[in-house]
């Protein structure tokens, strides 16, 4: 620890701190405009100047290292004068349009001008009169207000890894702008907006909507991915005006992605359900709760009497709380008497939990959110963590940037991580298993593996199996050179703290349970346990749902219920917060199963494609309209709060299920939420993760469908940073960033297929399904592969995908033509 004196107080700070950090750590305020905890010091604004004894000049505390025995003054008349002058100089250019500026009231320049004196400058000079830049989605730029601190530029480039904006021009004319003064076209994460100390950058949805002092702040847990960021909502008169990240708040410590910052408006969508709906004469008609619940109770009893309780199934939701899903399980066992309970996680998260059980004998992973920062070699397999779990992905970027760790990215797509990687192994799509097998084979070949791994169950079989995947053979299968495979093996083996990353989403069809298992084998060969795995669950409460549903294997799973794999087809299905007609692979089979049901009950917050097919639709209250618990990637429960009234007649999911169960004469308990939360905490959230016992399993590379004549392109599906499942399709904000599905295709393939950029493409599968998509010709995908995001219902991408076999929906061969 370094000891120094600030304002006459002896304080301590860790080595390598700056004076500013030392002061902040000890609760001493030093003003600053261009400094940000996450960025390298810039020393541009000159407001953090301090006096140091023995130094003639004033020093910028943000970029001066604290030294042993330093004597620092942060508030002296000399400093006050210097700061006042800096502010006066800023106010020469900065317009005093605070009355119409959305930043007023929380503007750092305004606050500092208030603190240090002048609202007017002694100097006079020109002001800029640029029109505002409003053409881009979500983010507005007002260059007249800009003080050129460059924080947004650095957040975008250094922290977010994008580099969409910069200081363009020179002198007075300098402005923050994309290259060529084009319209902003970026990830729309909005990190720049939160970092702007003045009102130069703003979010368009919040433009002129409220003054900040009229709003109430309410931190809440983001409902999208499993990172579980805290998004700070600003509320006014029962509506969410905006969402922001606040420095130091939540696991994300202020970072947010487009979904967390802009995706809140889905709850105000006109597609929200406001009343129960009953199918009368072929049409869904509004009904009262009593009518709807009595109908469900009567029809469920009917189906039960006719076909038995085991003919009733239910799908839970990875977006509903632990309590909601626990209540669904309770409803199914107490009121219905069936164990047929599953969710979309079957096609996503179960790939990794299935592998976890085999490799380590544990049911889930509890990730250490900051573990990537401590890793020295990071291996990412066929996953774009920065789009599936954006804020977790930032940790991987940070490890690469700050500690100069080695980042090895394997996969066909040119993702953000690939562009930042130390090594990018551009493998063919859906060849992850072969690649990892090749790496393991190279390790055994060179004797680089951890010798303890030889004692692990299954080692001889794996060693024997890996002979088939010699680096040369793996190179042939994956397209990555044998040399690169050997080097990756050597880098991983030499690492002190290697980490292996992959995300297994229900929409990503190029990775299966085998991929997860191969990575876990690799971890074991490296002498590591589950702590070396960076595999986050997919959605906000995927892990919580897994916990709430508990042990499996008792009833039918989603594959058996919906894809005709069951011995006895189910007759009634209770779907809570899920949209199988869009989000499940192999739409045709799913539709057939749904159409064949005697009773389809859909409980959702919005009118989905599945709800449109239901016999009865029950309106549920959404996130922020109810309270509950999410369990994200850390495995720790996080409470989210109710801060808005329910929409229309909607009710929290758990309450609907309780009322229905009670009507069906079951002892449902849960008189109120507190009682339910207590019960859930006791029965579900108290579960302890057992100790891991490693076992090695040989994994074969599944052969991807042969791409014969015509059907020669491999279709990979996945998700985008700006969207989440099919839910965000009703978010106007996110829709303004990306509103439609598209087909990413390599220029060479595009030429061969006669498809042009921005032109329409006809995509047909061997199953006879045909869809039409706008083409995006890009080298981001390699030859032989096309990529389509799955979020958009009307694009019907899942018509092309195959029903899952072993918990995975494999990549499919498609034919692409100009349309």
């Amino acid at each position: 620890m370094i000891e120094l004196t600030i304002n006459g107080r002896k304080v301590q700070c860790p080595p390598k701190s700056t004076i500013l950090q030392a002061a902040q750590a000890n609760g001493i305020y030093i003003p600053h405009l261009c400094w940000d905890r996450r960025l390298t010091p810039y020393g541009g604004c000159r407001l953090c100047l301090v006096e140091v004894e023995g130094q003639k000049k004033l020093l910028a505390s943000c970029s001066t290292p604290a030294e042993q025995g330093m004597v620092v003054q942060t508030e002296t008349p000399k400093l006050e004068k210097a700061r006042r002058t800096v502010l006066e100089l800023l106010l020469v250019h900065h317009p005093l349009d605070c009355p119409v500026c959305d930043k007023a009231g929380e503007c750092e320049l305004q606050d500092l001008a208030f603190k240090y004196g002048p609202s007017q400058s002694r100097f006079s000079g020109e002001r800029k009169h640029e029109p505002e830049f409003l053409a881009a989605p979500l983010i507005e730029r007002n260059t007249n207000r800009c003080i050129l601190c460059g924080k947004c530029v650095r957040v975008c480039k250094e922290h977010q890894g994008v580099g969409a904006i910069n200081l363009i021009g020179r002198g007075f004319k300098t402005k923050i702008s994309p290259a060529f003064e084009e319209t902003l076209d970026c990830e729309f994460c909005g990190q720049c907006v939160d970092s702007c100390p003045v009102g130069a950058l703003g979010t368009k949805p919040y433009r002129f909507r409220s003054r900040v002092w009229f709003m109430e702040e309410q931190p809440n847990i983001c409902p999208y991915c499993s990172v579980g960021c805290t998004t700070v909502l600003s509320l006014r008169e029962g509506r969410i005006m905006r969402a922001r990240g606040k420095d130091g708040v939540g696991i994300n410590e202020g970072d947010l992605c487009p979904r967390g910052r802009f995706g809140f408006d889905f709850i105000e969508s006109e597609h929200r359900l406001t009343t129960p709906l009953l199918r009368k004469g072929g049409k869904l008609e509004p009904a009262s709760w009593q009518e709807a619940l009595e109908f469900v109770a009567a029809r469920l009893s009917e189906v039960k009497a006719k076909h038995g309780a085991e003919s009733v199934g239910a799908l839970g939701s990875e977006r509903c709380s632990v309590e909601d899903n626990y209540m669904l399980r309770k409803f199914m066992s107490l009121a219905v008497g069936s164990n047929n309970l599953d969710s979309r996680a079957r096609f996503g998260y179960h790939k990794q939990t299935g592998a976890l059980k085999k490799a380590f004998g544990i049911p889930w992973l509890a990730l250490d959110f900051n573990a990537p920062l401590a890793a020295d070699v990071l291996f990412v397999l066929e996953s774009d963590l920065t789009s599936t779990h954006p804020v977790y992905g930032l940790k991987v970027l940070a490890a690469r940037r700050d500690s100069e760790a080695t980042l090895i990215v394997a996969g066909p797509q040119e993702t953000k991580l690939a562009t930042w990687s130390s090594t990018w192994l551009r493998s063919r799509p859906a060849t992850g298993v072969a690649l990892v097998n090749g790496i393991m084979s190279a390790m055994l070949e060179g004797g680089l593996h951890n010798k303890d791994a030889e004692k692990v169950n299954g080692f001889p079989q794996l060693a024997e199996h890996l002979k088939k995947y010699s680096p040369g053979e793996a190179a042939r299968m994956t397209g990555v050179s044998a040399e690169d495979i050997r080097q990756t093996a050597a880098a991983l083996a030499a690492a002190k703290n290697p980490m292996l990353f992959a995300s297994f989403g229900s929409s990503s069809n190029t990775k299966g349970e085998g991929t997860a298992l191969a990575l876990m084998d690799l971890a074991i060969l490296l002498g590591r346990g589950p702590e070396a795995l960076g595999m986050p669950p997919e959605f906000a409460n995927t892990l919580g749902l897994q916990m709430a549903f508990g042990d499996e294997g008792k009833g039918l799973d989603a594959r058996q219920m919906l894809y005709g794999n069951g011995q006895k087809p189910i007759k009634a299905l209770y779907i809570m917060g899920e949209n199988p007609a869009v989000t499940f692979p192999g739409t045709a089979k799913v539709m057939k199963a749904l159409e064949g049901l005697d009773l389809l009950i859909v409980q959702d917050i919005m009118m989905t494609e599945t709800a449109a097919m239901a016999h009865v639709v029950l309106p549920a209250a959404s996130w922020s309209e109810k309270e509950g618990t999410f369990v994200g990637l850390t495995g720790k429960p996080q409470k989210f709060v109710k801060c808005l009234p329910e929409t229309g007649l909607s009710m929290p999911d758990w309450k609907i299920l309780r009322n229905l169960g009670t009507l069906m004469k079951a002892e449902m308990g849960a008189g109120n939420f507190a009682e339910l939360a207590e019960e859930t905490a006791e029965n579900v959230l108290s579960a302890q993760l057992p100790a891991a016992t490693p076992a090695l399993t040989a994994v074969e590379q599944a052969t991807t469908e042969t791409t014969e004549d015509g059907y020669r392109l491999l279709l990979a599906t996945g998700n985008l940073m700006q969207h989440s499942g099919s839910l965000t399709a009703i978010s106007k904000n996110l829709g303004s960033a990306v509103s439609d599905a598209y087909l990413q295709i390599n220029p060479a393939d595009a030429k061969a297929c006669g498809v042009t950029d921005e032109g329409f493409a006809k995509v047909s599968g061997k199953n006879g399904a045909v869809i039409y998509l706008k083409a995006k010709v890009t080298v981001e995908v390699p030859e032989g592969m096309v990529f389509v995001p799955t979020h958009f219902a009307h694009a019907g991408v899942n018509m092309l995908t195959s029903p899952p076999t072993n918990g995975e929906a494999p990549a499919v061969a498609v034919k692409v033509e100009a349309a």
Partner: protein
Amino acid sequence: MLSGAELNEIEKELRAYSDRKMGCIGALKIVQRHRGWITDEALRDLAGYLEMTPDELDSVATFYPLVFRRQVGRHVILVCDSVSCYNVGYEELLWHLMKRLAIGLGQTTADGRFTLLPAACLGVCESAPAIMIDADVHGGLEPPEKVDQILNSYE
């Protein structure tokens, strides 16, 4: 697409630096020498080649007045407007040039032959008033008619 000749020269330039980014100013100058000015397309290609983002390279390019981000004529005339030249006939010289070429500062002649730009100082105060055409400095342009002969030698 950067041409082979451009790439050759840029590669040579980059050898002097430990990081590709560091050579960006030299690389911009090379491309400008070949093409006359830096188009958006050239800048985007060059940024990729130097492992920079386009906005990063554009921020450098737009910072330097002698990196041209707009089309210029075949020859660029820089007219020195610093103190020494100002005192001994800058105004007359500029006026003469504007009349003769029928363009103002920052403009290009209709035939694309000349672009007229101001320069803060050419560093040849001893021969003020001075101009610089492409890489050649011409001083002692007093009276301004002296410049006519010089212009004729630039096609």
